[in-house]
């Protein structure tokens, strides 16, 4: 179990983050320069936070008040760098064996062989890092970090330098890895899709602050703030005022739509009448329907972009300037619409979330 609660000030930037995970995969999501990597460096012991506490499986790694700051050497935390940071003058085998020099020769050999096999690097033991592809280097870095059996594995942007095919392969391998690796995994990314498919918990960062932390489903389906929602890839936002409430259902009056939007609020959220709120919905969840029904509004197509598997429509609304919606409609769901045509746009109630 990993508990992190740290603050760190740098010139023109300050990091403030708190989260805790069990033996699971946590994705830290955020734009570049938001403090994701700094968090990882603090946990690894490469950067000293200003205050706070980091505890891993009951062992205090850092405590500002008690003045504890274990060096990276004694933290049992593995780190895979964004650029892999392999030792260029050592072979693949020597790289992997670097962290287990205290073992006997036979044990080292066994362990290296097993790890290389698991990482599908058999036969590359004698190669040098510069003789490997990006994906292979990534796997060597993983094997090297796993060799000393760390209690926590940190991955800094593991996918950023790889092309799509290699990326998917690695995604699959990391998934496999979680089956035999007994520790927690924490990885940093700016890609929601990668984060979502791999993690169980998600932390969203923005400008050095932890904006939201929780189960990935909760985070992705119910972003807590506008900033978090944008970072999570939500494109559609509707500003409105609460006009009625019945149990979990609220009506929101949005300027420009021809009727009220009905949305569901989670039990833990309190909402009052006339409260200004923002409704959000992912562009993939919008539907174009033939007739008017619940949560359906007439909208005019302003622009169309054809993509490989879907059409992306941009919608305008009569009489309002600042309301724009984007819908990604799979091609099999209907023929291409021309700009200027007016259609019924459906916002499924269970896909809408409320930001107060």
């Amino acid at each position: 179990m990993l508990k992190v609660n740290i603050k760190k000030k740098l010139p023109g930037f300050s990091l403030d983050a708190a989260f805790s995970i069990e033996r699971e995969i946590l994705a830290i999501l955020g734009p570049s320069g938001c403090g994701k990597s700094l968090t990882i460096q603090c946990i690894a012991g490469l950067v000293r936070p200003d205050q706070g506490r980091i505890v891993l499986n009951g062992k205090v790694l850092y405590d500002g008040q008690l003045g504890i700051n274990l060096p990276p050497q004694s933290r049992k935390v593995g780190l895979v760098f964004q650029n892999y940071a392999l030792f260029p003058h050592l072979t693949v085998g020597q790289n992997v064996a670097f962290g287990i020099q205290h073992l006997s020769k036979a044990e080292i050999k066994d362990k290296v062989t097993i790890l290389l096999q698991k990482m599908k690097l058999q036969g590359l033991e004698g190669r040098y890092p510069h003789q490997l592809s990006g994906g292979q280097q990534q796997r060597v870095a993983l094997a090297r970090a796993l060799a000393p059996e760390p209690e926590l594995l940190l991955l800094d942007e593991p996918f950023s330098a790889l092309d799509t095919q290699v990326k998917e392969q690695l995604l699959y391998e990391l998934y496999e890895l979680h089956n035999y690796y007994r520790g927690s995994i924490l990885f940093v990314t700016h890609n929601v899709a990668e984060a979502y498919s791999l993690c169980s918990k998600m932390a969203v960062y923005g400008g050095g602050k932890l904006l939201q932390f929780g189960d990935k489903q909760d985070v992705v389906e119910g972003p807590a703030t506008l900033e978090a929602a944008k970072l999570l890839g939500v494109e559609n936002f509707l500003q409105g005022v609460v006009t009625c409430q019945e149990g979990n259902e609220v009506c929101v009056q949005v300027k420009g739509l021809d009727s009220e939007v009905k949305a569901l609020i989670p039990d833990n959220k309190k909402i009052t009448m006339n409260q200004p709120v923002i409704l959000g919905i992912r562009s993939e969840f919008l539907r174009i329907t033939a007739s008017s029904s619940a949560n359906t509004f007439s909208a005019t197509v302003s622009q169309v972009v054809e993509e490989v598997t879907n059409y992306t429509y941009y919608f305008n609304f009569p009489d309002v300037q600042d309301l724009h919606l984007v819908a990604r409609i799979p091609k099999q769901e209907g023929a291409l619409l021309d700009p200027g045509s007016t259609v019924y746009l459906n916002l499924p109630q269970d896909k809408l979330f409320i930001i107060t």
Partner: protein
Amino acid sequence: MEFDLLPVWISLKTAFTATFIAFFLGIAAARWMVHYRGRGRDLIDGLFILPIVLPPTVIGFALLLFFGNNGPLGRLLLRLGQTVIFSWSATVIAASVVAFPLMYQTARGAFEQVEANIEDAARTLGASEWTIFWKITMPLAWPGIAAGTVLSFARALGEFGATIMLAGNIYGKTQTIPVAIYLAVEAGQMGKAYGLVFVIICISFSVIMALNYLKKRQRIGAHRH
């Protein structure tokens, strides 16, 4: 004509010993400087490099004040019954001091070029700072270190000004090739001067060849990453 090899022998002995001293001091100073974040960083760096910039006679003069019988260290040594000036040790000290900045500067550059991430990776893998230095930093910085060593040797071999100030010109004891050449020309012994010039050109040229070879290896090394 019988050729006198004694200055050659003294020169080589001095240059090798001075290179050996500059090697360790230069690397230690460079390594310390790369990690030092305290006050007066630029000032200390300037002091380390000063012997390159100053005229060798000024260095010799400073060393003379320092090691002389009235100097701080000279007095201490005198109490132990030792005198440094005008001895073989003086040639080594003079050559070491002028060779040190070259070793220090090249080693520092080489250390700074080693990616911090790579050393950090070793840290997270449990390696001690000592292990990291010997197994990661030194091998990666090696081409630069080697080049610095060769440069230091060349500088130590060619040392004249500081040597003649501190060690004087005692045949068979402190008379190195450059000093011997100066003396031979002064005395009009052109044959002797030609011989010594030829010897030192041969040694220096081999040093340049060695340096080029190391540079080529360094380029291959850099290409690898």
